[in-house]
């Protein structure tokens, strides 16, 4: 992240150029992220097409309620993040810190619920590779479904954890009065990142929880 004191970093002519560079930079990064998740979505699509029944069976073992609650939690965190960016744009420092902390609380809540779900899967012996012995008869490729369930949600959770760290850094920087209405590139950039991570979940929820209808 470039410095965001009132003066532009030495390689930039002015703050406007610096702001445009930071903005383009984060969007290019999002493009990379889309391709990163894209590989997993491709694999998911291939096996979902090949082994639809297994995917339906696997999907029905997930806790729809927890998944839906988590979706709502995450959408709310996007709202508070957007409000935080707005507070930075209008120079309201206390409000900015407040909304950043709200966002962190919601993000942590999401991870907490996710942890409960993972723990349940562990108790039901649904961890592919290490501990996969579901009760009763199950379709042969259900383990593949759970591979993708864990790979995709864990990668998403990793992005959430990184996001929480970035938000914590923003809170500290905001506390030191680093952001002004003219110069708050890190808030904008991390805001875009946070929304991106939320949107990934918006795709993950139906793809993982709602296969074959419920």
């Amino acid at each position, binding site marked *: 992240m*470039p410095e965001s004191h009132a003066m532009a970093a*030495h*390689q*930039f*002519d002015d703050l406007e*150029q610096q702001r*445009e*560079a930071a903005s*383009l*930079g984060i969007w*290019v*990064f999002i*493009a*990379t*992220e889309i*391709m*990163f*998740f*894209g*590989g*997993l979505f*491709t*694999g998911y699509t*291939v*096996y979902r097409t*090949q*082994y639809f029944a*297994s995917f339906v069976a696997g999907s029905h073992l997930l806790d729809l309620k927890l998944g839906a609650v988590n979706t709502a939690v995450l959408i709310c965190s996007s709202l508070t993040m957007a409000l935080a960016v707005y507070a930075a744009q209008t120079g309201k420092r206390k409000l900015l810190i407040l909304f950043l902390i709200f966002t962190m609380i919601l993000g942590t809540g999401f991870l907490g619920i996710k942890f409960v779900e993972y723990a349940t899967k562990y108790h039901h012996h649904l961890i*592919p*590779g*290490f501990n996969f012995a579901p009760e009763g008869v199950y379709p*042969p*490729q259900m*383990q*593949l479904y759970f*591979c993708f369930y864990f*790979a995709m949600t864990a990668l998403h959770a990793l992005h959430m954890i990184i996001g929480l760290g970035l938000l914590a850094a923003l809170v500290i920087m905001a506390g030191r009065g680093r952001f002004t209405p003219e110069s708050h590139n890190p808030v904008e950039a991390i805001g875009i990142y946070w929304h991106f991570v939320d949107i990934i979940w918006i795709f993950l929820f139906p793809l993982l929880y709602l296969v074959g209808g419920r």
Partner: protein
Amino acid sequence: MSTLSVEEPEQAESRVHYLNVHYGVKSWLLTTDHKRIALLYLASITLFFLVGGSAAVLIRMNLLTPTGLLVEPATYNKLFSIHGIVMVFFFLIPSIPAVLGNFLVPLMIGARDLAFPKLNLLSWYVYIVGGLFTLYAVIAGGVDTGWTFYAPYSSTYSNTHVMAAALGVFITGFSSILTGLNFIVTIHKMRAPGMTWFRLPLFIWAMYATSVIFILGTPVIGITILLIALERAAHLGIFNPALGGDPLLFQHLFWFYSHPAVYIMILPAMGVESELITCFSKKRIFGYSFVAMSSLAIALLGFLVWAHHMFVAGVSMYAGMVFSILSYLVAVPSSVKVFNWTATLYKGSISYEAPMLYGMGFIGLFSMGGVTGMFLASLGMDVHVHDTYFVIAHFHYIMVGGAVMAYLGGIHFWWPKISGRMYPEGWARFSALIIFLGFNLTFFPQYILGYLGMPRRYPVYPPEFQVLNVMSTAGASILGVGYLIPLIYLIWSMRYGPVASSNPWGAKGLEWQAPSPPPTDNFEETPVVTAQAYDYPSREVEVA
């Protein structure tokens, strides 16, 4: 004729520039100056080139006799794997972008630095961490999957250090991504006043196209390698047919990046080529916008041809036909470039300094590699020569004959700017020549070997192939000497070479307006661009 001009000898000694502004290891390891980071990359990729090159030497030595001269077959597998992994991921992919691109992108567009200098330094550290993982894999006992890491062999059966090597490749990918991101933002947002898109040097267009592939392709190999590592650690079955997985899916994902990666290697080389050809024929490039747009066309079409690596792997006939036609299409923008370079030479004032020798070599060798690529894009021919030395020869003509020739040409061309010193011209021409000869002697016999049916990756071969293999090994020794000579005289010239003027070649382009070597901020004041790229005086005007 000689263009070694020594006009301002006292200047470089007394002036503060990026090399003498600070001294000490720390000033290098913590630098955010794009020029110093370029030199960090130069040193580290040279190291990896020597690692990969040593493996190549052992491979060629082993193939001197039909039964394998030196090593056990298992060791041979590790040698070609290390050669491929190191040369592709740790030398060729970062070579021109991370060294010449890092040094030149800000200079060529009239900027003080890249948009994100700290990110740029981070990318070098990421590269080094990835490199250490791979070196660990080599030292701990090697990896035998080939550079392609095909599943399920890599994910289930191989008992070598696949994990360390795969993690190395995974980590290094992020360094490419960061470099690409930095270039894209810099080229969009940091151009000097008057430097419009169609006044950009073609090297910048090539860097832009390359960065697009870095951004969109690299993450896909990242996630694929991660899946291989997961599968290896936990036996998940993602690519294991026994558990319902599909090895073809791995190949699709792998080549979705690794075919565009070929263009990561050749597009920057084409960018260098455009600079060399225009400078040493003192002419505007023929068809600027066609050359510029063909870079983007190659980058985009390059994403649509990956399955031509899989014609015999079990893709459907219709998929094969579609990918075959798309592969032919990539030849169009590539030939646009070759024809435009040759048209640029026409009636130019051509001089043959060492960079131009590399430049001319590039056109010939790249054309050979490209045309044999067309053979391989056709379904019938590919079934015949797939996985033979024909393929090896084809891609070495592109990657070594193309990318490495252009890299060396570029290093020589910009050496006065980088080091502030001239290299010894006579030695440079000599080594350019023997690299060209050694290269052809190494790889042309491999076309014939492949056509006759010698498969790649085998440590042994029928005795009737020995003559051609001995020729190839002899060529490789000449090639190896050809690479060592520049290594020696370039290091020598940093201290003892004649001091270079700011523009020893009389070239156009903003980088030649900055002093040699440039100061940390590149230009004393931001340049204003008023002319098109390669604005050499036209000869017609002189006659009139």
